[in-house]
């Protein structure tokens, strides 16, 4: 495995797991926001 390929796998990992992690935090926040809207 050359350096280009290692770098590519690192970016695949960041993009895949990173975006899912951000989305999980987003879901936590959005629950609060939707509650606020439902109260309105």
């Amino acid at each position, binding site marked *: 495995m*050359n350096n280009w390929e290692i770098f*590519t796998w690192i970016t*695949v990992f960041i993009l*895949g797991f*990173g*975006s899912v992690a951000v*989305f999980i*935090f*987003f879901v936590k*926040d959005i629950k609060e926001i939707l509650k606020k809207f439902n109260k309105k």
Partner: protein
Amino acid sequence: MHEIATIDYIIIALYLAGMIGVGLWFAKKHTDFEDFFLAGRSLTTPLLITTLISTYYGIDVLFGDSQLGFTNGVVAWFAYARPTYAFFLIAAFLLARRLKEENFKTLPDILDKYYGKKTRYVGAVTSFIYSLPALSLYGFGMLGEVILGWEPILGMLVLGGIALIYTLTGGFWAVALTDSIQFVLMCVVLAMAFPFAMKLIGGFDTMVEVLEPSYFDTMGDLSIWLIIIYASTGLSILVEPTFYQRIFAAKSYKNVRNALVIGIFIWGSYDWIITILAMAAKVAVIQGTLPFDVAPDAALLTVMVAALPAGALGLFMAGVLSTEMSTLDSYCLVAGGNVAYDIYKPAFKPDATDQELIKTTRHGILLSWVLGFAMAISFDQMLGLWVFMASILISSVMAPILLGMYVPSFRKPLAGFLSAGLGLVSTVILNIYIMTQGVYSAEEETFIIQWFGIDFMQEFIMYITVPISLISFFVGVVFDKGEPS
């Protein structure tokens, strides 16, 4: 055209229905204009990351980056994408805090505070033109054709129409929420695509063997002047209306800073994978797996259709649609805000109520969509239009905003008006002149005109218009004898 399974169509249909559902859910829930336009200034870090990334990554990046990756290799990432991250860092640590300190709602708000109403209107016109969704609608035409086999106009009307509906009804809340769903879809699907593409071409080592060594040269074989221009397009981040809107909509400065710093890693990964997938497409062409005449800007889409299995392909297509929808909705909303908040309210109805502003913003969104559609079907050559729209923003509002922000003694009305006005006018005139009097070069994929014995490309216009804007600014500073704002 390759086989697309029923499951792929079902996934796409579910995705599109979901987007409309979000917009309709928010339709009657806005209490005031700030809630409609800035989501009540309550965006947290995760929401900022998702909406920033999905907005900036439109079809131009997906196809623009991949086109360069397909024809030139890794230089697409090193020279075109990478400099942008430096500008994001500047924005995170130097710009966002200052912008967040004031209670601005739009980019022209800043110009109004520093230089007065006249400059506000020039900024509003610039921002409106820049935000017209012509490129996004053109992209929908292309996607409809490649993915669904539709006529381009049908793709623009149906796919662009869905993004229009949820933006009109749901405002910024709908945009931010749909952006978040679109964000995870586009990122995960792209990450997932890499192993499939490698399987198609026989692995990464095959790519290194088959491609010319210049494909792995970090500066490729592009001219230094073109690299400087590509790199400087990243400057637009510093005065980007949708970027500013997200800063204003954030809960606090810390949320913006954290979102940008985390976002850079995701942006970088996204750009890199697109570049590698485009290079894999080139290998597939050399190997004969893909047709030899595949268009460079359609290479990414074509290799994915060839590499991905049923179901995954539907997700990928929904991801590609997401990429474009999240861009179109954000720009339409900003353009609508320019009409209502930056022109209608100060010029015609200073006492407009929030409900009137929301209504006028919706009219503005519709207007921008219609104008963007007219442009998308009128221009055969979209690259020139893209260059025009990017150069107009940098040449008009960058100097007055940044200089006014950091040097309060420069905030003189004449300086702002001359700089923004002459920057705007010179960019429009020069672009039209080169596109009508120049010759389109298929090799360089741009308009070229002969000036003083040199081939002057349309991309080089900023080398003239930015100095015009800067010089006009300092002329205004010298000749305006009044006190700074």
